[in-house]
């Protein structure tokens, strides 16, 4: 009897601080995520009023608008660019993450800092730096001409957009892969070698499979933001390429069509959720956290 009472008191002691600890998070999430999300979903089913207002009359018009071939093309292009970005990001990140996971101590710190430091500077400024290097009369081309090579026109192409995105999302790919690789027991590589596997075989049979959770998580963390990013396409694409992110932004700003902007956002969110769901089915959901 007495014991039970004690237990109860103890439990109460545990719940109270726990509530206190999580409630700010819950309130924050509620205020900034749930409310705005619900608001977006609601207005996506409303009608556009004159001068950018919302007429509170339910309609599916905004969703029907999205089926316009012009918008569908934008959507397809966005998925393409996001997929390309993810693939290139993975190709660049994997060797880097491998090197990173093998270093220790001060060297590792240095690598980490080099990786993350540029991201303390505003993304727009960094991108404009790249514009300066890559544009027709930029640093790269003047260097190329100095050594007698043809200048290249890389800026304002889809390639430039992918380049900008790979650059922007690199750490989101490197860090989870590095995380997976660092967790791996180095004795496993020795065991594989001991059992007759050469370096490449060891990579295929041990390293790569064990880093799949990192690849999954990195892929999601690259693919999804690159699907919605708009300023990179604006700057690196010079406004030549319209992506889903630009489209949504335009609907809210220049087109002053809030319901359709909201509807396109909902489409993007639903698409993202589907992608994640598919991913979770293939990969191990626990590792995606």
């Amino acid at each position, binding site marked *: 009897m007495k014991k039970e009472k004690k237990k109860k008191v103890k439990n109460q002691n545990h719940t109270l601080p726990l509530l206190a600890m999580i409630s700010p998070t819950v309130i924050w999430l509620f205020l900034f995520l749930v409310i705005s999300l619900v608001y977006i979903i609601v207005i996506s089913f409303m009608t556009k009023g004159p001068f950018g207002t919302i007429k509170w009359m339910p309609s599916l018009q905004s969703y029907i608008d999205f089926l316009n071939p012009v918008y569908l093309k934008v959507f397809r292009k966005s998925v393409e660019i996001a997929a390309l970005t993810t693939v290139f990001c993975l190709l660049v990140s994997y060797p880097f993450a491998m090197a990173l996971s093998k270093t220790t101590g001060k060297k590792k710190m240095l690598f980490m800092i080099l990786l993350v430091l540029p991201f303390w500077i505003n993304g727009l400024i960094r991108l404009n730096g790249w514009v300066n290097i890559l544009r027709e009369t930029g640093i790269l081309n003047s260097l190329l001409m100095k050594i007698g090579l043809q200048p290249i026109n890389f800026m304002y192409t889809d390639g430039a957009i992918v380049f900008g995105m790979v650059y922007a999302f690199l750490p989101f790919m490197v860090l989870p892969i590095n995380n997976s690789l660092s967790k791996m027991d180095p*004795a496993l590589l*020795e065991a*594989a070698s001991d*059992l*007759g*596997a050469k370096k490449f075989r060891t990579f295929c049979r041990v390293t790569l499979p*064990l880093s799949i959770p990192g690849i999954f998580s990195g892929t999601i963390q690259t693919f999804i933001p690159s699907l919605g990013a708009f300023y990179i396409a604006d700057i690196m694409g010079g406004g030549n390429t319209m992506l889903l992110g630009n489209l949504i932004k335009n609907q809210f700003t220049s087109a002053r069509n809030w319901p359709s902007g909201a509807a396109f956002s909902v489409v993007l969110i639903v698409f993202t959720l589907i992608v994640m769901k598919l991913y979770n089915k293939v990969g191990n959901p626990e590792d995606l956290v």
Partner: protein
Amino acid sequence: MTEKMDKKPIISLRNVIKKYGENLVVNKINLDIYQGEFLTLLGASGCGKTTTLRMIAGFEDITEGEIFLEDENMAGKPPYHRNVNTVFQSYALFPHMNVFDNVAFGLVEKKMKKAEIRKKVREVLELVQLTGFERRKPDQMSGGQKQRVAIARAIVNNPRVLLLDEPLGALDLKLRRQMQLDLKHLQQQLNITFVYVTHDQEEAMTMSDRIAIMNGGVFEQIGTAEEIYEHPKTKFVADFIGESNIFETSIHAVEEKMLKLIMEQGDVTVREQGFEVNEIAYLCVRPENIKISEFPVEGFNLKGIIKENIYVGSQIKTTIEMINGYLVKKTAFPDGDMKPAGSIVYLYWDDGKSVLMHTKEDKIYNYIESAEGGSIPS
């Protein structure tokens, strides 16, 4: 045991040195390991056992010296080109593979046919009593089971030598005892050479054909359990293996195969050879060989007083304080010679039950097989 061991070494270490930077970890060791032998590297933590094993496996390169596997110099040979396999202390099972794929790993690398792989894996799993576990992942198994998967994964490749680094270290005592016997039987059944690392002397004694006692990067002594226990070559070995009473002595006189020794505790005469007058030496007597008498015994002048008798079931442990305060340990069966605490006694032991050791070789002693004419059990 003897007949299956032909005298040709399967592994030879020649003047092997390993340095990490300035840190000398293995200091010019020599060792021959024979076909079918169970050889144990025994020593305290940090003495270089793992390093030695890793050099044989090829994970660690050698600073100086040579390692031969079946007369072939292993210099520059990566692990995947050496016909040895390792059982890691942490097991190092591939966590993303089930038991079958773990065990089949080496066979797949050898590009063996699927049907043959299946047959071999089945056989080896039967051998380690893990039939039916094929589909289990390592994280769904107990420590003992993982251990057996690690062994199966190694022996399925039919290596010339199996290297085991404290493979039972993580198991509880009871399971460890059982696995010691299982491993020993497995080794005899397969007739594979085992090089086994442990810091547990009982384990080493139970399993090994020969034991190499390591200390500070050198071998103090290499021999059978009996040789090492009965005839320790150095003070370190006498101290490390079992319990010993070690007396510092000086050789007083050398008479026809007999030596007269002077020590602080008294004088004794022992049957030994190869010592010079005035040489300082260590005299080692095991506690179970110490005998006591009420009267002085010829050849011994060792007087002491019994401090206490402690019954530990099958044995009586007696402590005898000598004139200079040195405490002599003695063990006996309850029906053996025994005197109550406070009695004055004279110590003695039977001929050949003491070992006299040179002191100057105590630290730098480096065993060389050939000089010994081979120390394989016969």
